[in-house]
């Protein structure tokens, strides 16, 4: 990774951090868990890295590790989003 790209990546990182800070301002306590769960699912984006590692698998070891990574990350993503959805569903239950 060239220095240039590194620098750009840092820019992007910093800007994204700012956005992350701004997005969440006032959250009612009942939403704390769903929000945590949803953003946790987002952090499963590491699945992209896992896919690349596995797919490009230059060594057996790397591929195995990648496979494991894909499994873990997928659980995180799929489970995370689903659980979040379930929780959010719950809040609507009383409105008939």
């Amino acid at each position, binding site marked *: *990774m060239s*220095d240039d790209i*590194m620098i750009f*990546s840092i820019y*992007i*990182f910093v800007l*994204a951090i*700012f*956005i*992350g800070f701004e*997005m*969440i*301002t006032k959250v*009612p*306590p009942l*939403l*704390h868990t*769903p929000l*945590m*769960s*949803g*953003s*946790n*699912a*987002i*952090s*499963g*984006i*590491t699945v*992209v*890295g*896992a*896919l*690349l*590692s*596995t*797919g*490009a*698998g230059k060594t057996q*070891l*790397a591929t195995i*590790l*990648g496979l494991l*990574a*894909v*499994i*873990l*990350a997928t*659980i*995180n*993503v799929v489970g*995370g989003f*689903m*659980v*979040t959805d*379930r*929780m*959010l569903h719950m*809040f609507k239950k*009383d409105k008939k």
Partner: protein
Amino acid sequence: MATITSLFYLLSAVLFILGLKNLGSPKTARRGNALAMLAMLLAVIITLLDQRILDFTHIILGLVVGSAIGVYAAKKVQMTAMPQMVAIFNGFGGGASTLVATSEYFQLSGATEVNILATIALSILIGTVTFTGSFIAFAKLQGIMKGAPITFPGQRAFNGLIIVACIVLGVMFTRDPGNMTPLMVILGLAALLGVTSVIPIGGADMPVVISLLNSYSGLAAAATGFVISNNVLIIGGALVGASGLILTKIMCVAMNRSLGNVLFAAVGSDGGAASGGSGEQKQVTRYTADDAVMMLDNAQSVIIVPGYGLAVAQAQHVLQEMAQLLEANGLNVKYAIHPVAGRMPGHMNVLLAEANVSYEQLYEMDAINDDFQNTDIALIIGANDVVNPVARNKKDSALYGMPILNVDQARTVMIVKRSLSVGFAGEDNPLFYDDKTRMLFGDAKKMVTEIVQILKS
């Protein structure tokens, strides 16, 4: 081609941002989750189209297995076990980051820049701390492990030492990337750090810890993004890292604690704020005005039970404002007036008349006591004795024999008062500790005013 890919990743990143934003507000949360899912799907599809991917067997295997487990877990988990489920998912995320970084390490060829190496080490460090830390949190919440804080002397110094060691090892690693020992030691130390930094925290504080670990797993993903030079990872990870931190802070504030206090004070015990009776710890559910509004938003009917505290706080005017807002939102609002609420006959009537509450909305006890069972929320404002169930069954109580309002038959009971202290008759009130009761601690005027404000915004 790479340009197109990049632009699609950018689209995915934008969707993540929008998703997260929407997740933060009750009205849009579900849409937010959907957007984030879409973003993830997009990112995965783009990645699968990447020309660097040569072999799809492992990938498909991994996706299928992971999805199956994820779906199963998500469907099976009980609502009450949500926090630990999130913890375990989070751990997996952190683990995945570690694995990717390790895998990338093994795929390194030739001379590699220091910054790649450094981010590999960082990714492994953060990912592994998240992994083991989340599992401890899970174990504590699930009851596998004792919820109470586990401490040993020099714990904080020990943790500090681990971090220093990791930094030194990291530098060693970047100097001689061929030697994988330092990396493996980092991995081991990180695993230990995850454990030692979570065990001293009490069960009640676990949600905060999970939120913090969630923030970490985001940073781990971002670090992985640096490793593989992938912007969507960097952005997604950074978003989670930052918003997770904010959420952690918000959660601490809601608990009236500082983050430092949560992490290092080792005070968390099993219950929330407990008090009252002699010896035995009883648990109450605390609610904020925000929570109350969310409940009211989803309710169809509410019965307001005013008591002496309403008079002391002189909250009648703002209470009437709240009731009007609720009615405008389509709720059915009634007031239940207990014959001896307050300190003189008709005390509540004087107050509510002053606030121009229409007489049609006031119901005497006998006329309304059967309605509670069909009511979503009984909202008790500064009343205590007149809703105290000991009057029904505790023979030696001063209240025994006095008819009370059947608030406990409503689906949810919300009580506004300043503390758990007793009313006129000096009797403890078991209703406070009931499963369906939520306590809104505070001066009645302040609390109702807060609710009004939130209802309006």
